């Protein structure tokens, strides 16, 4: 853990508040999905991010609206942290025409161009090179944007990871690689897939910085991302940040897979004690930045807003079947 006192002193209080807000937003956004999912009318495979919120929050705090972010099948946290409208996301998950992808994509394929999310792929490792491509475009267009790609430990095993790092390092592109190492890919443990646990070590092979941080400590993430984003903005090239974290829920769906025997319960307990939201909340209450009441109010406020979003989203209509054949091809006219 870095000297969080240092960061806390340096950073703008608004930023510190926002870190909490973002994490709480992600947490409650997904808790609502868990609530409604058993009704069987949100027909999209949801990959919940609960337990990993500090990564999205800590990284996206440094990004401008126009910066590009690429997420994965586990998309909710990144979209929300980047500023996407919860109602539009819920609507998408309900397959509504008002969803961000007109109901065509679902939870695995959110899009939000206004917030720099140009689309999402659920092919493991698929989004990494695409983010390098937007970074290349930014370099060519000199538009000052940077690109961030979030991906899992599993994705770091795909050839595209290697090909992307090589190219980004070669061209010194403004891209930040955020590997969310939650030690599993579906239910397969990292130890059955990689020779060791330190994914950031790969960076050395490409001559770029590789940093490992505690992905449950939002200030650690914030700190590492700050340096990486700065490097990218200054044209100094890519950085690989590995955030060690843990997924509380099953790979897909609202259940806890530990109960099915997929992963050791003691792991979950250990990591739940290190809940990113709780840890950070306690820290900033300790530091006197907010009070327990402030926090309760924040939770209530977000909860109410998300209730409204969810309710509104559900009321939107499903796409007409005429939509089926549309959007296969782009048409200039």
């Amino acid at each position, binding site marked *: 853990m870095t000297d969080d006192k240092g960061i806390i002193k340096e950073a703008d209080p608004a930023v510190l508040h926002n870190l909490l807000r973002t994490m709480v937003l992600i947490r409650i956004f997904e808790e609502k999905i868990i609530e409604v999912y058993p009704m069987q009318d949100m027909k999209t495979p949801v990959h919940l991010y609960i337990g990993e919120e500090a990564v999205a929050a800590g990284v996206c705090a440094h990004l401008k609206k126009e910066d590009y972010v690429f997420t994965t099948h586990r998309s909710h946290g990144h979209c929300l942290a980047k500023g996407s409208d919860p109602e539009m996301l819920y609507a998408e998950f309900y*397959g*509504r025409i008002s*969803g961000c992808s007109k109901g065509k994509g679902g939870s695995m394929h959110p899009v939000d161009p206004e917030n720099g999310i140009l689309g999402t792929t659920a092919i493991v490792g698929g989004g990494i090179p695409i983010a390098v491509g937007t970074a290349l475009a930014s370099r060519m267009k000199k538009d000052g944007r940077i690109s961030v790609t979030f991906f899992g430990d599993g994705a770091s095993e*795909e050839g595209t990871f290697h090909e992307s790092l090589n190219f980004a390092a070669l061209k010194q592109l403004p891209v930040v690689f955020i590997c969310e190492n939650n030690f599993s890919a*579906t*239910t*397969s443990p990292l130890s059955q897939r990689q020779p060791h646990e330190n994914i950031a070590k790969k960076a050395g092979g490409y001559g770029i910085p590789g940093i490992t941080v505690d992905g449950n400590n939002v200030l650690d993430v914030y700190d590492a991302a700050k340096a990486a984003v700065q490097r990218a903005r200054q044209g100094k090239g890519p950085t690989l940040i590995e955030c060690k974290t843990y997924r509380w829920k099953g790979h897909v769906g609202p259940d806890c897979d530990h109960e099915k025997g997929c992963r050791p319960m003691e792991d979950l307990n250990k990591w739940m004690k290190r809940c990113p939201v709780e840890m950070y909340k306690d820290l900033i209450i300790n530091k006197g930045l907010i009070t327990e009441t402030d926090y309760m109010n924040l939770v209530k406020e977000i909860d109410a807003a998300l209730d409204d979003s969810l309710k509104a989203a559900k009321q939107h209509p*499903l796409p007409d079947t005429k939509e*089926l054949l549309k959007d296969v091809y782009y048409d200039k006219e």
Partner: protein
Amino acid sequence: MPWTKVYIDKNELKDTLAREGLRGLSYRDALKEAQEQLLRDDESVFLLGEGVDDSGGIFGSTLGLWKEFGKDRVMDIPIAENGLTGVAIGAAIAGMKPVFIHMRMDFLPMCMDQIINHAAKWHYMTGGRVNVPLVIRSIIGRGWGSAAQHSQALHALFMHIPGLKIVVPSTPYDAKGLLIASVRDGNPVMFIEHRWVYDYIGYVPEETYTVPIGKGIVRRPGKDVTIVAISLMVYEAIKAAKTLEKMDIDVEIIDPRTLNPLDEELIIESVKKTGRLVIADVSCKTGGAGAEIACRVAESAFDYLKAPVKRVNFPDTPTPCSPSLEDAYYPDAETLVESVKGLF
């Protein structure tokens, strides 16, 4: 014969099995049993794939196998489809018989290079000196908003690649018999399952047996129109045939079971008899298996055709997520009925 007949009515099936003293097994368990027996009988067989040893066990089809055979022979792997296909090819040419399992067929484009440029061509490029006994199991997904990247059926692509065999079993009996035949075949075999067939039950003998690769089967004899139905569509075709029967249209249903080699003879014979052809598949229309089958008929049984051929497929769009669009996307027995009626 209860192993070739496809029962739509579960009670009818149960009765038949009970009456004949036969064992019923799901498609999923038939696959599992085939693998279990193969692993037991032949030391060179091993399974590999993302999650083959986990608590899901590839939708149950490999569930718990690692307990008997160990994690070296029921091997979880990194997420690296192309590299691992190369690894499997290497193991195969060195005398092993790997079965590489993909939970979704959508992930095969990742390893197209090793499949198309390597596995398929190795025997030819080496002048027949080295063969590749590799089976690639992959499952076609469907429903619950699986969307564009988790519900593709890409078997037609492999039909264009000489050197591959392609197997699309629709029944538990064939799933077991064809999987055993595939593993013993000595060639790279694309073994393509449909997720929606996993729960179907049918007669499956306990002993080891093979179903020959390259032989189709008549699922229902008929005289007025031939439906060539692939994979899940066999079931829709049977339902459609029942409806059409009431309209005095007698449907012959052919389940090709393998797409390469394709049992052209069986199809041609049927069309010569019925003069009409509908092909029902579980993938997009253009460039699909239906095109090839129709073309073969237009080449070889042209004089017997009394009506245009028809295809029943998904539309040429990626799979949408929304339930309203998913509903519209997938053809079923009704679509087939309409299509057949259009030929009279």
